[in-house]
């Protein structure tokens, strides 16, 4: 990771626990998706993860899989994604979450560089690529360095000390702490392993954002109380979009519900922060 100057993404975690929502771009269609992402900012998002849909989302649970299918059917492509990023009216840093093949194929030249270059142009601040472990991340990391973007790594409950080091080494922006094993998806309890992972990462000078299974203000609070610098929420928000889509709700109504849900989660994160013992350890710097 680049020392010295911290990135916009990293900075978004500086003052208070960050709320990092995820939505699949283009779900259920381009226009609604714009409104939804903007609602997330109004609801308190500090960083937004924008999912660029890939046909084989192997790390996603059913909720996000379905969102991906909806978005692809509505015509989402990498090119449209970049238009979206350019067009969406939000000020917080945007992190692109997608699978490596889309990054690798983009542009005329094989390899991740054209994708990263274009992402930088339209205003993407970083990447999360669930099927790209540290061992294979070299080229993407290099392109990120070249264009000044962050490369966010995921730390899993199964990640051991040795891998942790390699991982932290290639990371910037924040560390995505996977709260439990499995795929994305809302669940009702926050795993014990989250606390363990946070403890192991306590010496690392990067914000730790916890994701996978966070669905309520209380869960957000628990995670932050346990030391997280941020909470990542995907499926719980995608469910709001899916509900709206399935019931034929007006986009405006879904937008409002999404904003409310975001607000709830942000509030939870703040509450958790408040509950911390006098000297909170998780906040870096």
């Amino acid at each position: 990771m680049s020392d010295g100057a911290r990135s916009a993404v990293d900075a978004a975690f500086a003052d208070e626990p960050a709320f990092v929502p995820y939505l699949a771009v283009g779900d259920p269609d381009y226009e609604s998706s714009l409104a939804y992402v903007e609602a997330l900012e109004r609801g308190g998002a500090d960083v937004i993860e924008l999912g660029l849909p890939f046909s084989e989302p192997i790390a996603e649970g059913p909720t996000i899989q379905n969102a991906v299918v909806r978005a692809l059917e509505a015509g989402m492509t990498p090119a449209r994604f970049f238009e979206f990023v350019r067009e969406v009216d939000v000020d917080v840093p945007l992190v692109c979450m997608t699978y490596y093949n889309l990054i690798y194929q983009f542009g005329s030249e094989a390899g991740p560089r054209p994708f990263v270059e274009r992402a930088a142009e339209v205003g993407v601040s970083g990447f999360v690529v669930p099927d790209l472990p540290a061992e294979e991340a070299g080229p993407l990391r290099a392109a990120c360095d070249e264009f000044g973007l962050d490369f966010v790594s995921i730390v899993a409950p199964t990640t051991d000390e040795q891998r942790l080091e390699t991982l932290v080494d290639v990371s910037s922006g924040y560390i995505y702490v996977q709260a439990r094993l499995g795929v994305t998806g809302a669940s009702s309890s926050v795993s014990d392993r989250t606390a363990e992972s946070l403890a192991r990462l306590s010496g690392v000078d990067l914000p730790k954002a916890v994701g996978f299974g966070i669905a309520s203000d209380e869960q957000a609070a628990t995670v932050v109380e346990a030391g997280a610098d941020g909470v990542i929420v995907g499926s719980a928000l995608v469910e709001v979009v899916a509900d709206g889509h399935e019931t034929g709700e007006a986009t405006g109504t879904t937008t409002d519900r999404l904003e409310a849900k975001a607000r709830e989660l942000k509030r939870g994160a703040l509450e958790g922060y408040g509950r911390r013992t006098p000297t909170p350890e998780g906040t870096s710097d």
Partner: protein
Amino acid sequence: MSSEGERSDAETTGGDPGRGDAGDGKFGRYGGQYVPEALMPAIGELTDAYERYVLGNEDGFMDEFRRRIREFGGRPTPLQRADRLSRRYDTEVYLKREDLLHGGAHKLNNALGQVLLAKYMGKERIIAETGAGQHGTATAMAAAHLDMPCEVYMGERDINRQRPNVFRMKINGSAVVPVTTGRGTLKEAISETMRDWATNVEDTHYVIGSVVGPHPFPRMVRDFQSVISEEARRQSLERIGRLPDSVIACAGGGSNTMGTFHNFVDDGGVDLLAVEAGGSSLAVDEAEGVAPNSASLSTGSEGVLHGARTKLLQDGDGQIVESHSVSSGLDYAGVGPELAHLVDEGRVTPVNVDDDTALEGFHRLSQEEGIIPALETAHAFGYLHEHHEELGEVTVVNVSGRGDKDLDTAIEETAQRDVPNAPDMSMFEGELR
């Protein structure tokens, strides 16, 4: 360091350019480990176990494997001269009879190896994906044999195309989990099994069914399958007194293919032909995201899917397209990285035949040799028929599996086309399911 330089280092080199025998999981530009971080420790553990038990025969693992594949599996399988095809084509045609392996396909070589390895590793649960159901049944059999609980993910559409295999898995005591995402075929089943693995990675081993997926799977599966060519090469020398001029195998993921080719790779004079499913056409419909074929070696391009960099059927953006083949077991958008590499090197020639030709091959082998092949295998015989003049004096064809699982499909698909050598099935008119 320039990013350009780093990219080309990490992404296009590494590994032994010849046979990909290096331990880094790369075969030239292909291979690697493109999986979620949560799986990396398991993959590391597996790599370690692979090196110790499979490569190092620690605790006599390979001895036990070889004994079990012999006694339980029925190895060695024969190398049989195909008298009537030899006469028809005026060339010596030999059949490597993997259809005689327990379960009816080469798949058991790998499934038994991996389930046994899982046992040595102390795993308590087996999961697997399956397309044609052959890998699923092989895994279910191996799991029953070795007393391991087993769950098999299978696309809903494949479940309907391959019901006998579904019954077999359940009768062997495995659970069959229907996958309803996408078109409900092998690709979706693999994704779903990876999800299960990511959730239960600590006590669960994922038995991948072909030479695909992240390292060490492509090498390990190849090693378990390479018993095919180990035998076939020895049998050729014993039976015919020479090596064949050509070796033909069908290629889906490429496990029977690599198994059949592996020990011939260093024999420069032996042509290696991988027959892919040409489906109904080699063209790709980008708008629909559909390739009406499964010919990733012949028509695909480099990309990353299911844990490895390899040749894929994808659109210009990198979205994986829906593949197609009359045979479920070839119906996959990717192919093993080592095979992709050997094709790039010019060592393996990728060829393909369409659905119609495969059906003709199916009926020909059935009628003329008394062996009903799997529809996957039938592609190899379709190719033999069309190109027998180019194959030299001695050809070995791998009969990767038997067609019992395909009877209904073969009859239905035959009825829908004009297959010149179709048998008279009129006794069942209107009675087919």
